[in-house]
């Protein structure tokens, strides 16, 4: 109590105590230990392995246009997977993300075509719809306490039915009419689905958007207060609540982020093909989840990364396209997927145990 003359308020840092017992000097953990503790390590190793494998197996895989192709395939998975990864870190699932993509695209397409509106009106309205779906998912989960697996499974079925039913009602078919003659289509296409010439390589703009979303996701997770709250909400919800983290808002926000990204992909698909099949998107929810898990996200929450989800998506994209480039039967893809997922989960388990081990 000898140095309790301090008069500063509790918000100011106190000067270092001089009378403190000599502490052993802080030491950094070894580089290997720190690198292995990153969630992305397993996915990075797997991505390199898959790349080298197809590089060796399929000569056409080595060209730049091939890179553009598999990056594009990766982006169409990776965009939503970023949101799904964040959501899983926050401790929840979203099984409705795959069909929500289609819902957003259908909403925009049918609204604009039926009412002959500017495409951008549909873009904005479908954004509102997608965010509302995310909000509803999140609100139901935090309000009822029912596991998000069940809540979003219900949403999945509801949306799947609505996608088909409403499309059939409105258009009389299972696809929307072509909207490429409407006002604003060209500018919307430029934003969501144009090709960008980078000199050495021509990339679909979605790849750039994907990179942006991954960067933003990483920034939010590691460098902002919200990111801290996401990790805490998934890692130990009760503890997070007890220190004043608004867990419910965080979770609802995460579901809405997934909604936003699903909307974005939906807009891409619509502007790319100018028509939407009402039945697509089913099954993709698992692809997003697998990408997140391969990228190091724990199913139990509290651990994972946005970059990891991108690596997971990249592994996916390289494999789907690599099999084609190698001239193999694409039916093997699902088998590969299963093996990949199992390996990823095993690596993650090992990494988690390593990270949590007492040192």
């Amino acid at each position: 109590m000898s140095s309790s003359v301090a008069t500063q308020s509790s918000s100011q840092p106190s000067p270092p105590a001089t009378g403190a017992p000599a502490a052993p000097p802080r030491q950094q953990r070894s580089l290997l230990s720190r690198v292995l503790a990153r969630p992305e390590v397993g996915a990075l190793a797997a991505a390199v392995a898959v790349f080298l494998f197809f590089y060796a197996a399929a000569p056409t895989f080595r060209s730049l246009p091939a890179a553009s192709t598999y990056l594009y395939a990766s982006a169409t998975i990776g965009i939503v997977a970023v949101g799904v990864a964040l959501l899983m870190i926050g401790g929840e699932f979203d099984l409705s993300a795959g069909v929500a993509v289609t819902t957003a695209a259908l909403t925009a397409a049918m609204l604009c075509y039926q009412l002959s509106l500017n495409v951008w009106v549909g873009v904005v309205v479908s954004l509102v719809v997608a965010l509302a779906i995310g909000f509803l998912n999140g609100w139901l989960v935090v309000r009822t306490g029912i596991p998000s697996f069940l809540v979003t499974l219900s949403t999945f079925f509801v949306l799947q039915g609505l996608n088909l039913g409403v499309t059939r009602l409105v258009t009389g078919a299972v696809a929307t009419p072509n909207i490429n003659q409407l006002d604003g289509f060209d500018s919307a296409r430029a934003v969501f689905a144009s090709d960008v010439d980078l000199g050495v390589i021509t990339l679909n703009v979605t790849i750039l958007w994907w990179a942006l979303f991954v960067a933003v996701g990483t920034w939010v997770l590691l460098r902002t207060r919200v990111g801290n709250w996401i990790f805490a909400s998934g890692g130990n919800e009760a503890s997070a609540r007890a220190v004043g983290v608004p867990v419910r808002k965080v979770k609802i926000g995460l579901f809405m982020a997934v909604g936003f990204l699903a909307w974005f992909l939906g807009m891409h698909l619509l502007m790319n093909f100018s028509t939407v099949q009402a039945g697509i998107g089913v099954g993709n929810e698992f692809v997003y989840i697998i990408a997140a898990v391969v990228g190091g996200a724990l199913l139990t929450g509290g651990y994972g990364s946005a970059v990891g989800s991108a690596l997971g998506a990249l592994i996916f994209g390289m494999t789907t396209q690599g099999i084609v480039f190698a001239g193999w039967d694409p039916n093997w893809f699902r088998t590969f997927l299963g093996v990949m997922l199992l390996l990823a989960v095993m690596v993650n388990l090992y990494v988690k145990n390593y990270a949590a081990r007492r040192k």
Partner: protein
Amino acid sequence: MTDTIAERAARDLHRGEPLVEMDGVGKAYGAIRALEDVNLTVNAGEVTCVLGDNGAGKSTLIKIISGLHPHSEGTLRVDGTERHFGSPREALDTGIATVYQDLAVVGLMEVWRNFFLGSEIRKGRYPLAPLDIKAMREIADTELQKMGIHVKDINQPIGTLSGGQRQCVAIARAVYFGARVLILDEPTAALGVKQSGVVLKYTAAARDAGLGVVFITHNPHHAYMVGDHFVILKLGRRVLDKKRSEVTLEELTAEMAGGQELAELSHELKR
């Protein structure tokens, strides 16, 4: 370590002054009455021990004071003002911090992130403003060093620390952020003798710094080492409420062990 707690503790604490007063507080979950007619006063600079077996209502009591569940009967006053907490944030804002036994920290997050969780330092006030990671690391590092908690690396996941160290980090955090009332939920339940000793020392240090401490436990030996006032709950009711001068350790132990019931049981089991 007492130095730091004393430096950190709020200035306006006067020993013996009531910080939290509960009067006839009760809580019903549907038809189940988890807590009935509990009177409890938490004074500054004193340790109030709440003892009880499993299901005695200890956790319900904590949840009411810490804002996790609002009470359904009676009054809860903090600094003389009647309160009805809707969230832990509201309780925290009045200076009531709770350290939970196993919920104290998020195991997979770094030590410094845990230290500042819910009270992060940011470089701006706008949404998504970057965290001041450097400052937070340094402060957490200095604070823990001063308290004699030696972690190898402030960036390691807190799950890699021992149970006692985790509790101490959580207590240090609560005190650093200006807690006036500290609720410790079974802080020693999962710990060995040595680790328990560390936590008890912290409890005493917080008391000496003028904080009001509520120490929840089912171990009368630990309670008697630091307590000034003892309350024993049984099936949601108060069965003992005495000052340290009015009660002995034997009395506490007997009452905790079941008192009369235990005597009867031992008689029955006698061959």
